[in-house]
């Protein structure tokens, strides 16, 4: 057993238990793990963005002289790096900096220029492709003629899909009262929608349970790792278990004394 790995895993297991404690009620252990997660995620993201985004796609393109790094611009020879690099990348760099004017009440309008660039490029790229691939192709595929050559069930499925879509659309048509035959089709539409939501809900339950199972598997693997690691590992496992047990007992005593703490499970 590698002690390095084991101790990091012990930390992960402890934080997992801290997080799960929220299922009982809000508490300082949960708050600690939540704050740690948010802080670490934000810090990690900033560093990843810097070294994977700004440095290779902006600074390293502006200055290509291998002897000169972008942060050594004042140490001499920077001009040769700049002129041999793609200096025009300074323009998007400046546009990026203009975004920071967002924080100024008086000069906030300046940030609208880079936002306009960004939205213009994004919508120009997105609208035709989104219309083509997420609207037109889906519409065309929905209204395709029933394909019984692929089998009787497949042909019936095609018909059900067309009818289901039409019924679903009827339900969302509110300009006419949902009465008579129109109401019957709309009611069928709500049943179709409920079947769809049911499928999503079933998958969602599986997904949420999967997250919990993986954590339990990790805790089991941690126990195995410590157990196989000899006396030191077993002591660490016992210490963690005793701390958890002690906290549970303390909470139980509070409960039995009829003085439940403030806060409820969400």
């Amino acid at each position, binding site marked *: 057993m590698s002690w390095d790995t084991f101790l990091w895993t012990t930390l992960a297991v402890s934080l997992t238990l801290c997080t799960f404690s929220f*299922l*009982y009620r809000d508490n300082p252990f949960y708050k600690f793990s939540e704050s740690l997660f948010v802080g670490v*995620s934000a810090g*990690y*993201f900033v560093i*990843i*963005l810097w070294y*994977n*985004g700004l440095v*290779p*796609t902006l600074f*390293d*393109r502006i200055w290509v002289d291998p002897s000169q790094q972008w942060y050594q611009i004042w140490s001499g020879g920077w001009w040769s790096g700049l002129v041999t690099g793609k200096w025009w990348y300074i323009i998007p760099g400046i546009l990026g900096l203009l975004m920071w004017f967002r924080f100024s009440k008086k000069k906030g309008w300046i940030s609208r220029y880079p936002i306009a660039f960004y939205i213009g*490029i*994004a919508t120009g*790229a*997105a609208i035709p*492709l*989104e219309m*083509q*691939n*997420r609207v037109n*192709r*889906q519409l*065309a*595929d*929905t209204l395709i003629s029933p394909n019984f050559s692929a089998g009787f069930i497949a042909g019936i499925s095609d018909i059900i*899909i067309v009818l289901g879509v039409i019924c679903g659309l009827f339900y969302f048509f509110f300009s006419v009262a949902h009465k008579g035959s129109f109401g019957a089709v709309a009611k069928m539409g709500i049943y179709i929608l409920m079947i*769809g939501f049911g*499928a*999503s809900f079933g*998958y*969602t*339950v*599986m*997904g949420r*349970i*999967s*997250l*919990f*199972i*993986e*954590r*339990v*598997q990790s805790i*089991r693997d941690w126990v195995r790792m410590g157990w196989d690691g000899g006396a030191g590992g077993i002591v660490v496992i016992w210490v963690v278990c005793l701390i958890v047990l002690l906290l549970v007992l303390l909470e139980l005593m509070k409960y039995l004394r009829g003085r439940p703490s403030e806060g409820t*499970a969400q």
Partner: protein
Amino acid sequence: MNIFERISRLDRRWIYLILAAVVVITVMLKYETPIRISPEVRSVYDFVEAQPPGSYIHMAIDYDPGSLAEMHPMTYAIMEQALCRKLKIIMTALSPNGPGMAEQAMLDIMDSVKMHCGREVVYGKDIVFLGYKPYPGIVILSMGQNYRLSFPSDYYNTPLDSIDMMKGIANYGDVNGIILITGTSGVDYWISYANGRYNAPLAVGLTGVMAADYYPYLRSGQIFGLMGGMLGAAEYEKLVKRPGRAMEAMRVQVWTHIVIILFIIIGNIGYLISRRKGEVK
């Protein structure tokens, strides 16, 4: 107040406790749950099997540690299969908190391939990790023109032209297909841009929460395979004959689902009784 009414008013924490007990007990048990292979998962497996040795696939690892439970088993099973078949893999990670995790997975898989297939996977010859870049939509579009536009260098800052396996590889046209494993809405970009704009064959592995929403794209042929959540991962593990965490988890899933269904039935009976008594409208 009868038993059904009492249970329907049970403190939710008792339900958490019962579910936790069921999960812990069934994780300790050892038996295999029968798993049926669905056509949409089999088509991903068949695609990887059909590729000749030396051909390229793009693995997009677009998830962060929050979705690791469902996504990692898919990533491990597919990449091990591909590397054992001597395919070359270009990896990207377009989820902000994902690159470190993706790198760790890559190193684990390289070790695992050596252990199970007796093959030494060499970084730069068999696999390359390009890392993360912000704005997935723009990155996916630019990779369709040239990988070097968004990734002038790989995750370890080595210029792409200095990497053996990237020589002569320009864009999606040079890879035989893209397998996207994702827990984010970035899948829409891959469908619209990589498949829609550049006609790159695309298969997806999604979290359970997302899976039902993407079946229409399977039917329209915009994706050629779909693995949904832990079940999709378990099916793939079964196909590659390497039982892992997903197959093990399905055993637990069966029992937890039984418990949840029982609670739903009991809760509804309690609700109906209360309604009959006029306590609930």
